[in-house]
């Protein structure tokens, strides 16, 4: 699809450079003259938004590391010092903390877009898998980053997550101790988390390059799910999509700035303003919002190991998704049944997030009183169980079966036909 390069070096220097290191040619072919489907909607701008936020996180992170002290006695105070005394530290710290949330918001939209428009299907399976790898790395980076301020939520978050590993049979305890570098979460843990938190974003950047490479071989998918067939289907990436992406990025930045400047701590938790205390657990510990659905899945199972396996399974199932969906139709625009199952899937993910934030024994709604006079009703635990069941059923039962049952709507012959309707020239096939 990429076709022969259209780059023509114009000056003696660019000709000289192009013969030795065709880096300008690479950039030109990838981001200037790259043929891009003309029908991409705004859901396709989140890749660019994510690239911007990865850069924001790396730059603000490098800056924060200049002032942060990774030691249990100083970490909390050093973050307060960044907020109070370092020039513009309050701004950079707020950008970094909220940037993580916004990166997850963008990545979830990006992933749901992929799910709806079938972006994981042949020939883009590897592109999807690389995306899942990036997502897992993001969760690792976010988790370790959350430990660094060494507040109560940092400490107890680290404690709970590392204890999940302890659920593994035989090797669990040994691995947990190895992760901690001690007999509990402590200074050694904080130091290694800081080191890894600094490393992972660069690994993410590396996988992002692979992700874009894997994107540029088959080219972008598109909302109609039909492959590019001719020149009339595409537009050069620049200026058409550079300006569209830039507009979407700035709109997203408005929302980001709203949080950074006017509600910098809303997405955090009050308990993380209390320095870590290994003797007192906060009354109500919850992970950051972007991990809540997985937290709900973890708690939906009464067995410790079972919960852990289910939680990892919830992410692991994404790796095999390209082979679970049996439908030949890529975009759910043309899948009348699948789109409703998808909408329900999105709602279930949000409900799971809600369950993760609440106490499992609390009631979603009450139905009456039992013999002892206690309220009875539908608890968050059961909502989480139903949600978990649907989550897995969507991938393991619904998508595989729908391909055989569903009768897809008629698809357009080409992107051009989809865009122009009757005015389109007849495809040359």
């Amino acid at each position: 699809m990429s076709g022969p390069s259209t780059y023509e070096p114009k000056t003696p220097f660019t000709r000289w450079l192009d013969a030795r290191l065709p880096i300008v040619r690479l950039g030109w072919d990838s981001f200037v003259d790259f043929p891009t489907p003309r029908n991409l909607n705004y859901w396709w701008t989140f890749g660019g938004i994510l690239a911007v936020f990865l850069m924001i996180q790396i730059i603000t992170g490098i800056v924060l590391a200049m002032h942060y002290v990774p030691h249990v006695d100083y970490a909390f105070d050093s973050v307060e010092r960044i907020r109070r005394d370092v020039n513009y530290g309050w701004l950079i710290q707020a950008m970094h903390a909220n940037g993580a949330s916004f990166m997850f918001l963008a990545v979830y939209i990006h992933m749901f877009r992929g799910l709806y428009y079938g972006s994981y299907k042949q020939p883009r399976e590897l592109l999807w898998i690389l995306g899942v790898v990036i997502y897992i790395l993001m969760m690792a980076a976010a988790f370790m980053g959350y430990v660094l301020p060494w507040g109560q939520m940092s400490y107890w978050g680290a404690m709970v997550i590392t204890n999940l590993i302890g659920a593994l049979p035989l090797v669990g305890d040994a691995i947990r101790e190895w992760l901690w570098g001690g007999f509990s979460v402590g200074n050694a843990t904080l130091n290694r988390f800081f080191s890894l938190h600094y490393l992972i974003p660069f690994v993410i950047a590396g996988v992002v390059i692979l992700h874009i490479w894997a994107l540029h071989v088959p080219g972008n998918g598109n909302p109609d799910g039909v492959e590019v067939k001719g020149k009339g289907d595409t537009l050069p990436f620049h200026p058409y999509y550079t300006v569209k992406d830039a507009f979407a990025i700035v709109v997203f930045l408005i929302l980001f700035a709203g949080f950074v400047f006017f509600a910098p701590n809303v997405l955090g938790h009050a308990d993380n303003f209390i320095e870590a205390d290994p003797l007192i657990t906060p009354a109500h510990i919850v992970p950051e919002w972007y991990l809540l659905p997985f937290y709900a899945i973890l708690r939906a199972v009464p067995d410790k190991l079972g919960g852990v396996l289910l939680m990892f399974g919830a992410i692991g199932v994404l790796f095999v998704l390209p082979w679970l969906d049996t439908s030949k139709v890529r975009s759910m625009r043309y899948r009348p049944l699948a789109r409703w199952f998808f909408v329900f899937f999105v709602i279930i993910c949000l409900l799971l997030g809600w369950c993760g934030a609440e106490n499992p024994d609390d009631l979603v709604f009450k139905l009456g009183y039992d013999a002892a006079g206690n309220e009875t009703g539908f608890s968050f635990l059961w909502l989480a169980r139903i949600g978990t069941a649907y989550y897995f059923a969507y991938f393991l039962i619904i998508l595989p079966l729908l391909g055989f049952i569903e009768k897809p709507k008629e698809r357009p012959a080409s992107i051009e036909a989809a865009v122009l309707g009757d005015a389109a020239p007849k495809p040359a096939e």
Partner: protein
Amino acid sequence: MTKAAAQADHAAEPTRRDFIHIATGGMAVIGGALVLWPFIDQMNPAADTLALASIRIDISPIAEGQEITVMWRGGPVFIRHRSEREIEAARAEALEALPDRLARNDNLPDNAPATDENRSAASIEGGSAAFLIMRGNCTHLGCVPLKEAGDYHGWYCPCHGSHYDTSGRIRRGPAPENLSVPPLRFVTETEVQIG
């Protein structure tokens, strides 16, 4: 619409189209420049570092001929209670004999000559000529000179052989400037504030 047609259209009506793109590009450049500043400024000394930038020293316990070194802004400051002989030796030098004829005193104008009066604490309100207070890093590459050493019996830098006289002025060796006098203020007769 093809690219060629778009370009033809561009040629027909250049001004309005160009204006909006130039304005947008201009905004991007301005925004980038404004965002850059916090990321540069964060490396400047923080508020707590700046707050520690002044110290107060009681100089009354320093006997004649004695010298103490205090830490100020992360480096040494020499406070020397000079003897009569050292002061005389410093005053006897003709200005023309000095490699650096400027006083290098933060409390005086930049062009003040390097006389001993301009170097010693006599240049500060409430100070006496007996005290010489100056930064203790050689003006060559920052080593700390040794006291009461060198050809001029002032300070001698062992790193690259710079000789300073009893007024802290460079006399011989690679150092380009006299040891400089930091901002000083006498809070009381015996207490001096540096910075």
